[in-house]
């Protein structure tokens, strides 16, 4: 049994690199997801994951499968889309999420078009769905670097993010510009999506961000608890999904995200707070103590 866990890692370098990449992403993506859910921006993460595609495509067309080039392209595209969506929202008065949704659809189509012009369907599949088993040393350094920088930045702005999520006007009253905090947070999210697309693809990179975060809300009412649990679910999904993909001969990205999805579904059914089971249990609790009957 122990061999089932250990041997893929001792025997193959690509599995060790994949494990480190998965762990690095699991340490930072779920906390970002927790803040996305607290800010009511769960679907914005998904939209931004698609928005990076044209930049990734341009990086791919210019330098082939070079993670640094594709990441820089993705980062620029993500930030441009976030900036354009914010600008349109301010100028038109429309909600920012609808502007982001519009721009991500345009970005997705532009990205697929760009790759189709020069690449093959295999290239497109690689960009859209990633391959954690193909992470090389350069990609690994990039992922670990981005994760470390994100972790430090999150620690530095943790209190600002928490207070701003609850009551943005309070923070504005204290002289902190909410738009700057928002932009920094969106920047961190895009940075992590671009770091994650090599391993999980642009379409699924957001899965490791959101699913652990949404699952954790069924288990904890404390922000520290949400963060810790989301990270634990992320690590479990990454390691479990990786081993499952190795032994069952399945693609690694979908295995990781599906495992996180299973944790989410189980949490929604049996979690401690607000789950189906928790609500059912509360409903059947007697109103009066037992000795009051009869």
């Amino acid at each position, binding site marked *: 049994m122990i061999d089932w866990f250990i041997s893929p890692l001792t025997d193959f370098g690509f599995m060790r690199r994949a494990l480190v990449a998965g762990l690095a992403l699991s340490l930072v993506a779920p906390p970002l997801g927790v803040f996305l859910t*607290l800010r*009511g921006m769960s679907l914005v993460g998904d939209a931004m994951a698609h928005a990076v595609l044209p930049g990734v495509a341009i990086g791919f067309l210019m330098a082939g499968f070079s993670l640094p080039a594709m990441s820089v392209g993705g980062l620029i595209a993500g930030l441009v889309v976030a900036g354009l969506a914010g600008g349109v929202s301010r100028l038109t*008065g429309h909600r920012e999420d609808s502007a982001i949704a519009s721009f991500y659809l345009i970005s997705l189509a532009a990205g697929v078009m760009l790759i189709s012009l020069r690449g093959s369907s295999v290239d497109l599949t690689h960009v859209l769905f990633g391959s954690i088993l193909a992470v090389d040393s350069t990609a690994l350094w990039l992922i670990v670097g981005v994760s470390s920088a994100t972790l430090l930045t999150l620690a*530095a*702005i*943790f*209190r*600002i993010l*928490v*207070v701003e*999520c*609850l*009551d943005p*006007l*309070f*923070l*504005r*009253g*204290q*002289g*902190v510009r909410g738009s700057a905090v928002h932009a920094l947070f969106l920047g961190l999210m895009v940075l992590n999506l671009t770091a994650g697309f090599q391993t999980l693809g642009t379409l699924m990179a957001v899965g490791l961000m959101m699913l652990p975060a949404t699952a954790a809300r069924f288990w*904890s*009412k*404390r*922000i520290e*608890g*949400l963060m810790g649990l989301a990270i634990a679910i992320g690590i479990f999904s990454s390691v479990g999904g990786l081993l499952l993909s190795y032994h069952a001969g399945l693609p690694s990205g979908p295995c990781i995200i599906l495992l996180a999805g299973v944790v989410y579904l189980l949490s929604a059914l049996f979690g401690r707070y607000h789950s189906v089971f928790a609500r059912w249990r509360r409903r059947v609790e007697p109103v009066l103590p037992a000795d009051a009957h009869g």
Partner: protein
Amino acid sequence: MEPILTLEAVSLAQGNRMVLENVEGTFAPGSITALVGPNGAGKSTLVQAIMGVLKPIRGRIHCGVPSDRRAWLPQQLALDLTFPMSVEELVLTGCWPTHGSFKRYGPEEYRRGQAVMQRLGLQAFEHRPLGELSGGQRQRALLGRTLMQKAQLLMLDEPFANVDAATVDILIEVLRDMAAEGVSIIIVLHDHDQMRRLADRVLWLDRGRATWVAPSSLDAASGATLSNHATADASIHSHSVNERPA
């Protein structure tokens, strides 16, 4: 007494829509002013301008209170009621002016937090998540944050909505104590009885105009009284703030 807030012919707009014109008034330390008016009359717009979030298109707002000592208590519905934060954590965020984003809370802050929660009858709930509190308990916790903040100018948006009568009494007592300590309070209210119990004076907003009236004019026919004030008098008068109701 030197006013801590002065509005000089202030005109405010939201987008292309003019909301208020030529609002004038002075607010002394320790005054309690009720902002009254129908929905859309500009109460929240005026509060935003005083908070420094919205710039007047004409006129001038002079506020002697630094921005970190201006506190804003939003309507409860404006907040995420399931936010994963305890009462104590919320109260301690009021330390922002002295601690900002980085400085750790020390024993002194926790001691002050305990005292604030005791004053508001919240000690039994200190570790309880906000989502598990009643409307009144949550409102007390939010007021606790402003006490920690040592606010000198406090603005509240319908703080007694969805709050039980006992909590209303506690909140009114705490607010009057704060005013007695020199805090200037501006409060958006609808209930005339609460206005009479709490406010020194009333700023009635309607159809772009602002009119000062005394709380004593809020009798049974107060609706008509206020409407008469608002429609008949385009000019705006600033009253003394030291006439506290008995």
